[in-house]
């Protein structure tokens, strides 16, 4: 068995995160970390060592990517293949595991190797429970994006593998960027939610940019969309709006009426900013700041920026 830990993602950004995971794992177990690239080397990928698999073309569909990886693995025998758990990545990992007959760990965060056993943490039950799972090597693992930092270790080592001709049964007819503006709050990892504590529509960009700084989206309480029309309907969270479960929910100037709480009560961490110390939102929050949002929000933004 070769001593390599492979990392593959169709997204360059995620690929860099995977390299961190691969390096960590490789170091712990005396193996080496290799970034697998399909078709060509991507500039945005930073890695010490690469394997470029020829034959798949650029940006292949997951079916083809999986076959390319499978052929490469059959010939080079890596011990582990890490794949970013993006939508396409999940398909690639599943197919590679099925074709190679390897076990597959999914949505892993903390990876470690214990002898011939691979071990990982992952959350289950909507983030309520952390499970520790393991399997024998060789194995395929999908890694939760945004858990590992991007690796900066660079190098020039490049190897090539020709996978031969690769075709799939699924045909790509068109590919386009997603429509802008259509935010899906249900999928956002962080949400800044604006309530009637916000005085004017013109103040919303302040909250929007906080949301962006946190890598999330802007939502609101019902009055802001339904009564005031400051934000589109699909932004309103609660009983009559969308139900969300982000990792971070920041309620700004929201009193926390039950109809609103009903839509965000399963968020992982809730932060509230409100001038009223008795506002019910504080009962439903992990962290509360009793102060004027017009002072606190810019302060949070500054603190976030200085953290970078």
């Amino acid at each position, binding site marked *: 068995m070769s001593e390599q830990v492979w990392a593959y993602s169709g997204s360059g950004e995620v690929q860099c995160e995977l390299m961190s995971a691969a390096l960590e794992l490789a170091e712990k177990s005396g193996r080496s970390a290799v970034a697998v690239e399909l078709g060509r080397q991507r500039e945005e990928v930073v890695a010490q060592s690469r394997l470029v698999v020829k034959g798949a073309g650029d940006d292949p569909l997951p079916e083809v990517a999986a076959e390319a990886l499978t052929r490469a693995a059959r010939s080079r025998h890596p011990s582990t293949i890490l794949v970013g758990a993006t939508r396409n990545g999940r398909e690639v990992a599943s197919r590679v595991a099925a074709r190679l007959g390897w076990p597959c760990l999914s949505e892993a965060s903390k990876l470690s190797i214990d002898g011939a056993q691979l071990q990982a943490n992952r959350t289950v039950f909507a983030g309520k429970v952390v499970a520790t799972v393991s399997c024998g090597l060789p194995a395929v693992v999908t890694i939760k994006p945004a858990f590992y930092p991007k690796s900066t270790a660079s190098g020039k080592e490049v190897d090539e593998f020709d996978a031969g001709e690769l075709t799939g049964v699924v045909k790509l007819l068109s590919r386009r960027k997603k429509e802008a503006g259509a935010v899906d709050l249900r999928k956002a990892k962080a949400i800044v939610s604006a309530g009637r504590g916000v005085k004017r529509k013109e103040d919303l960009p302040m909250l929007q940019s906080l949301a962006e700084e946190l890598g999330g989206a802007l939502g609101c309480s019902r009055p802001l969309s339904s009564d005031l029309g400051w934000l589109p309907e699909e932004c309103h969270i609660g009983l009559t709006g969308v139900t969300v479960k982000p990792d971070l929910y920041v309620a700004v100037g929201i009193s926390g009426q039950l*109809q609103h709480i009903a839509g965000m009560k399963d968020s992982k961490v809730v932060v509230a900013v409100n001038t009223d110390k008795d506002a019910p939102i504080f009962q439903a929050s992990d962290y509360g700041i009793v102060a004027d949002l017009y002072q606190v929000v810019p302060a949070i933004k500054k603190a976030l920026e200085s953290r970078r």
Partner: protein
Amino acid sequence: MVLLAAAYIVTYAVSLLSAAAIFATVFVRSRRASAGLGAGRLLELTREEARRSISGDPVFLMHASIALGVGVSIAEVVLAPVLPALFALRILLLAVSVPATAGLAVAFAWRVQRFVQSKSVERSLHTTGAFSSASTRMQGILMVAIALTASELVVAWLPAFALVDAAVSIVRNSLVVAYYVGPTVNLISRVGTRLPSVETPFVLSDIMSGKVDASTVRSGVGDYPDFSPKESLSFDSCVEIGACEASCPATAAGRPLSPRVLMRKLSLHSDAGGEGGPFAVVGEDELWSCTSCGACVSSCPVGVKHLDIVYDLRRDLVARGKLDKEKAGMLENLARSQNPYGFKQSDRAKWAEGLGVQTASESSRAEYVYWVGCVASFDQRAQRVARSMAKIMKSAGVSFAILGQDEACVGDPARRLGEEGRYQELVYQNVEKLNSLGAKKVVTTCPHCFNSLKNEYPRFGGEYEVVHHTQLISDLVRSGRLKVPPDRVREVSVTLHDACYASRYNNIFDEPREALGSSVSDVREMKRNGEKTFCCGAGGSNYWFKVPEQRTISGIRAKEAAETGAKAVATECPFCLSMLEDSSKVMGTGMEVRDVAEIVADAVP
């Protein structure tokens, strides 16, 4: 001269026949619709008509004047040959015909105004041209009938025009036979079964016990033959009087619903073959717009029961899975958590923490079961109502207990939305609990719970003495058990928002006012109060979803409240509280909104 006499005799005979035809057709069709024509029934009908016309309701004034006018004019024609000889009778008929003529004049004016408004409603609902002309024709006939009756009453006093009088009477009587016999029969058949009764499409226990095969159960109406004969008679009876449209909150808010248009669309479409079923002419949001406030049913002078039809069509939508996320989500919450919010039932009694309130299983001998309802159990604002009620009962020494987590949703939101099965499941669950505890008296702070428990639960084996909290409070005040010291009576003006399900559905008018009067100095009335109250917009399950509208129903009501000049609005329903508090903020009326129980509890030491 001879010719004239002959013409007169013939006309007179025809006119007598036409009058007789009215009574004959009413009689025959009533028999056919098995709408008993018993004296008791007719008496009750007359009493109700008289009461509402005296109260100055223009619709009923119009209706009574027409009935009276038609009656008098028929009598005049019938008695024409002998009338000149009977002076006393002449005076009597005159005495009756003068107010009847005046009433008809008022009715005509009201009618013209309704006509104009109906056309503007039709424009905003984008009804078809064919519909609008059919509607214009129907309204035209009504106005002609009114005009004919009025002119007949006048002409009757000019002996020279006896022939004309008889001729007019023939035309009018023919119109009555052609258009108004069905509605009359409908009205008679509806005596005693208007509000608050709801048709029960099936009984769950029969299905559970295997008496009825589940696969044969159909709930809801997807095609015209599925309507019960009573329902078909109901919408076919609509003669476009327009009273429902005038009082409908959904129409007033610019929602895509007018009860008049809905009834007439069904009637015209089914008459024309009904291709594609009712949903070919009725929209989904049209049905979801209804708040079940009952204003239409209560105001319809010919006894059309719009609500049965709305519920049956909604049931079909539910059965076909035509629900958006809010509606389906609410029903799923009911199925999973037994409350429409989806909160844990174990948190249901949290509002009572630290108050020393007992649950019924702890103290089975309490006089009252306090039925808290979902809103007052879970909504932080409404929890204050529950706490206030607990304080009042403790202060007055009323022994009571709550069911705590054993209290499931009463079922009202499921039933009004059209999910009858889920409704009955909740009912059976609650009935079993209440019966196992031997509950006799139930008090509740929610009119929707009150209405279900009082009027609907008996059908499913739950018979209790149910009181609304305003009734209990006024009782306690009257009997002196609850004492408000004079120095604690607040100097403030308050206007009461009658909840539809308390007032219109259940005739609770005086008690909340008495209760309020014990604790505040000035109780004012809004223009629409009592049985003519205007909905807050939450009923009919509307609290749980959104409907397209041009303005909010609660906003209209908040403005009416503000027009009284009062400083505060008192509510008697946790839904009303939530709606009106929200809209008072949005409309910036600056009015405080509080439940009657909160206001009284504040005044009790």
